């Protein structure tokens, strides 16, 4: 059970959160302009890296806010936490 540092509430148990998949996958600004393949890529394809991964979390059992996390998918270590809309931080 990870201890996830909510940017609004502080460190809380993983069970209070919902997972939201890969971060920085914006809803296309003009879906009609996309080819079927590009649209399918948006709908169905997500990265699955071994290592640092920027992903969305929602503190659903508390402040209900969405935020982003960079988590190492091998160790579950949380490398960065940042607010929605902020760029993915550069990690040393």
């Amino acid at each position, binding site marked *: 059970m990870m201890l996830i540092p909510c940017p609004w509430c502080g460190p809380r148990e993983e069970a209070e959160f919902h997972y939201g998949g890969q971060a920085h996958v914006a*809803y296309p600004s003009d879906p*009609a302009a*996309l080819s079927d393949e590009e*649209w399918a890529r948006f709908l169905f394809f997500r990265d699955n890296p071994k290592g640092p991964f920027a992903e*969305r979390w*929602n503190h659903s059992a508390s402040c209900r806010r969405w935020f982003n996390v960079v988590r190492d998918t091998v160790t579950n270590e949380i490398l960065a936490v940042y607010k929605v809309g902020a760029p993915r931080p550069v990690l040393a």
Partner: protein
Amino acid sequence: MTQQEFRTVQGGRIDRDRPLRFRFDGRDYTGYAGDTLASALLANGVHRTSTSIKLGRPRGIFAAGAEEPNALVQVEAPFPEPMLTATTVELYDGLVARGLGGQGRLATDPDPARYDAVHTHCDVLVVGAGPAGLAAASVAAASGARVVVVDDRSEPGGSLLGTREAKALDWVASVAADLHANPEVRLLTRTSAFGYYDDNYVVAVERRTNHLGASAPAHLSRERIWRIRARRVVLATGAHERSLAFDDNDRPGIMLAGAARTYVNRYGVLPGRRAVVLTTNDSAYAAALDLLDAGVAIAVIADLRPSVSPLWTERLADRGVEVLAGYGVERVVGEERVSSVVLAGGREFEADLLLVSGGWNPVGALYSQAGGKLRYDADLGSFVPDGCREAVAVAGSANGTYGLAGCLAEGTGAGRAAVEATGFAAGTGRELPAADESPVTPPAHTWVLPGDETVQFVDLQRDVTVAEIRRATGTGMRSVEHVKRYTTAGTAHDQGKTSGVLTSGVVAHLLGVDVGDLGTTTFRPPYAPVSFAALAGRDRGALHDPIRVTALHAWHQANGALFENVGQWQRPWYYPRDGEDLHAAVLRECRAAREGVATMDASTLGKIDVQGPDAAVLLDRLYTNLMSSLKVGSIRYGVMCRPDGMIFDDGTVIRLAEDRFLVTTTTGNAAGVLDWMEDFLQTEWPDLRVHCTSVTEQWATIALVGPRSREVLGTLAPDLAVDNDSFPFMTWRDTTVAGLAARVCRISFSGELAYELNVNWWDALALWEAVLAAGAPLGITTYGTETMHVLRAEKGYPIIGQDTDGTVTPQDLGMDWIVSKKKPDFIGKRSFARADTGRPDRKHLVGLLPDDGETLLPEGAHLVEMESLPEPPVPMLGHVTSSYHSAALGRPFALALIKGGRDRIGQRVYAPLGDVLVPVTITGPVLYDPEGKRRDG
């Protein structure tokens, strides 16, 4: 009743003034308070406890703690519990148990005990209260830190309890007293840490009353789960002795040398009269000396090392014991119990006990679960910790440090480092006892002795032999993980505590590779068996999941409703009258709604208040149809899709003001829709000025349905013009109903003239009773979810989640009309232009009429094109999604999703039900009042 013939005259940590009676395998015995079932059996001369699971070979007590592979028992009284190890069952008066051949039996009676859970946080968690753990705890506690110490035995002391180190045991008692007295410290005995999860989250089970038997106080929970979040963890989990693979190494009377030492010293029990010792290392010599002192004859010590420490040889020679360097065991005589041991070369020694030490394995399970790496230490001949990302330190023999002085020093250092890392100035713990240690001669690294591999056991519980492992490596397996899965070695209740490293060693031996390169198999929780009852705690029965009820629930119960679970809600299903079954009651309820007036509690409908200047923009983007054009005072039905174009939810939208809407959702999806809105507002469109609030439990909703519903409403709401022109379909009015502030919506989910009356949740009962009173002269009938489903299905209204399954578009339901052509975009729009959503053979929602007019198709039934089934695979056309008896139609009917269904209307297809193919005819989905004439009454 037998005497305890194998009890020492004095000594041990048992209470000889408190004899306890127990029964094992049908025979009565006595033991003492402080015994385990295993030590009490040994005191009575019982070694053999069971037969092995596959081969049926006699097996006996092999170890003295949680690592026991053999002595599985079923406790029968006071409460049945399977698969416990005799070495960890504390003896109590009246214990009844029997030996198990690897499989137990669950109790058929409900467990009367309670189980609990506790959450706690600490600065330092120490796992293991042996010398290293207590040294760490002593320093940490003296620093003012919040400390939790857990240990799986009945008292602290760890391996020291099995020795005669008087000074060290005094120190144990002082430290334990310090810890108990310190308000910042919690010392939990009989508590096994069994799982180490992310971010120093350690889960343990405390056995609170198991050891008390029938005298357990009822107010105490039997076991409780501790969920501990620790800033730092010190693992002082000790080491387990391992065996060696030699011929017939599974016979009762063969025991780990350290275990025998524990039985003598801690329990005052002689595990035999005359012992042979087989060892690869020095530790067995100390055991032999303690056994000698207690009166056990040592026939010979066979040491596999070519040369042996003269120090130990002399000590044993002084006692007249021969030490044979470079000797192993050739075979063991005696099936039910060891009677003699033959050493390599043929010398036979009469003995009823064979003590084995094949070396020691640091207990690395929790460390590995934490993500720690293990490294093979060739000098020690064991795997030791080698780095972990968690804030954890390992101390003592868990770290491969086997001497007492080393354990104490390492524990002290780990405790100091842990408190300093959490911001405390390290205090001074209890002064450490002096440890008198002998220089250590390096151990031999031997796994397998020469002999017959088919009777050389590696995993005693799983009956895995060297021959079986050879079969695995012979098929080409090179990984211990593969060998484990092929042979099942290490998969029993003990998870290979004594056999895991031996398995790796045997594989290495057979492949001729280095055991360090092979590694161990993965350690996973739980470290020790834990009951589901403990894990469930109080979250069982009614507390397993919240039960949500409406404001009218008590009325429904008092009036005989049967209930249906819809998500977490309990909704009235139907209201049977005298002798009615579901079928009869629903036909009656349907008839009332179609012909007179009927009412139902619709409060579970999800309701979301959407407010803000951009509220209409948000709804336009989420619904497939246009919502911004809706006039204040009006209502519109809407459908939401996922980006992939598949229907996600449906409901009505009520415009309360220019900047305020009330959105309703399906009962089961209310939270999901709110989450969906929040997700887009927070992450995609943070510029939209909109707030969403769940008001499901603020508004109680009563549906008033039927051609005579207008009369009832007119009586109850004198201020409201109820005629069709003044109050048309899909509009709402705020008014007073039965003297209560109410919002009345003209919405119909049945096709009949109907209203939804919304009032404050607290006013629901008053309104409900007023509606029933006003409707009584017209024969108003209450109805439940079953009738609601029949009425809506007769009209072809789909239930999202029943008639759809996440692969269905609005067009598939024949609802092109709800998909806006005007809006530039909405969630899902782009997907409607995908080739897949335009396929002509997509499944369409259609109606079905069984040709015989009688058969009620089961929901989920498949539909095929052919009159008789061909050889599989049979091409499927689709399946039945809803199926009911219709009072209005006078026959059963169904809704179904069928490939190209709208192009097949009028065609006959077949539903295979058992051996029969039931012919059915495809129709449009609207079977009742297709013209919609009944809507306005």
